[in-house]
């Protein structure tokens, strides 16, 4: 158990093995490990990014929905007011129409009354003349009488 050349052989062997490990074992494995680490980190980052994107999209969707709801309410209100306006317009128009019809009827009635009045007047004149003829039994100047009676009728009318 004395020291001998095994020691030197061992040092040489050791150096060779360390060199081999340093050259051919350590670098590829650590490289693969680092690559995997990076891959996993990238994957996690991507997942996080995706989650953030989703959150943003969700936000946007909610905003859009709210906008749409507001717009719909606006449109509804517009429609309502338009409808009210149309109803109002219809009301006005129908009232005007009614008024017009009433006025027409009034004027018809007036005309008819006028006609009836004329006729009545004529008949009254006739009756009066007839009456007077009967009473006087005398040929009198018919035109003078007629004027007289016409005046009388006008007076009657005025008072009527």
């Amino acid at each position, binding site marked *: 158990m004395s020291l*001998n050349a*095994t020691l030197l052989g061992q*040092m040489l*062997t050791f150096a060779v*093995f360390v060199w*081999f490990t340093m050259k051919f074992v350590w670098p590829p494995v650590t*490289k*693969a*490990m680092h690559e995997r680490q990076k891959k996993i980190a990238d994957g996690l980052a991507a997942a996080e990014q995706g989650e953030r994107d989703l959150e943003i999209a969700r936000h946007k969707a909610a905003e859009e929905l709210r906008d749409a709801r507001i717009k719909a309410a606006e449109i509804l209100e517009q429609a309502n007011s338009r409808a009210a306006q149309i109803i109002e317009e219809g009301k006005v128009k129908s009232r005007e129409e009614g008024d017009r019809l009433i006025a027409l009827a009034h004027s018809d009635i007036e005309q008819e009354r006028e006609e009836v009045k004329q006729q009545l007047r004529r008949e009254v004149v006739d009756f009066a003349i007839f009456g007077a003829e009967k009473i006087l039994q005398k040929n009198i100047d018919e035109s003078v009488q007629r004027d007289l009676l016409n005046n009388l009728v006008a007076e009657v009318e005025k008072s009527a």
Partner: protein
Amino acid sequence: MSENPADASAYIQHHLVNLPLNLHNFTFTSGGFWTLDVDTLGIAIVLGVLFCWLFRLAAKKATAGVPRSWQNFVEIMIDFVDSQVKETYNGKSQLIGPLALTIFVWVFLMNFMDLLPVDLLPRIMGAMGAPYFRAVPTADPNLTIGLALSVFCLIIFYSLKIKGFKGVGHELMHSPFPYLLPVNFIFRVIEEFAKPLSLSLRLFGNLYAGELIFILIALLPWWIQWTLGGAWAIFHILIITLQAFIFMMLTIVYLSMAHEMHS
């Protein structure tokens, strides 16, 4: 085994002699310093090649995708070693990680030979004509001192590289105590030389003792061996892992100390 004390002693002695290769005449005799412990070196190289081959297998097919089972194991080992290195040593070095990994796995494999039945490899090699054979390379001080000396050379190399001759000289003279020059120098030199010595003798001592106890257990009657042998083997699993880890950890610590300036 025989109950005869002389036989028992011979059995133990026989198990504690390495297979020598005399470098003067290439025979299996001792040749002083120029002797190679063939069994130690042979098993160490076989295990080292096994380690390199197996790990290279995973490294060649290493993907950033989902790792297969063997790549997974290799990655766990590398990650474990790497985290130890990063915890202790804050700098960038291409060497320390692979160095620590090699030490850990290789020393563990060599320690693991201790868990094989003590007579298995010696009997096989004996049948092939080897007069002696020791199966546990780390129970040979030549191997552990070789490892520790390599680490020591790296410590010196990095100290000089980072701090320069002047920095190292200054450190040797002026710490731990300011202005106590000769005392500091002696302290520091002892400290530096204690590093490889403790590193190698710790590993050697643990494994040598473990091997010796297995040999002693092998001397018991065959029907009782499993009790002590089993218990010691289970406990030894802890020891061989721990010793490999300690050797790796101390290497990292020493090298990180070599990188750091004493302010």
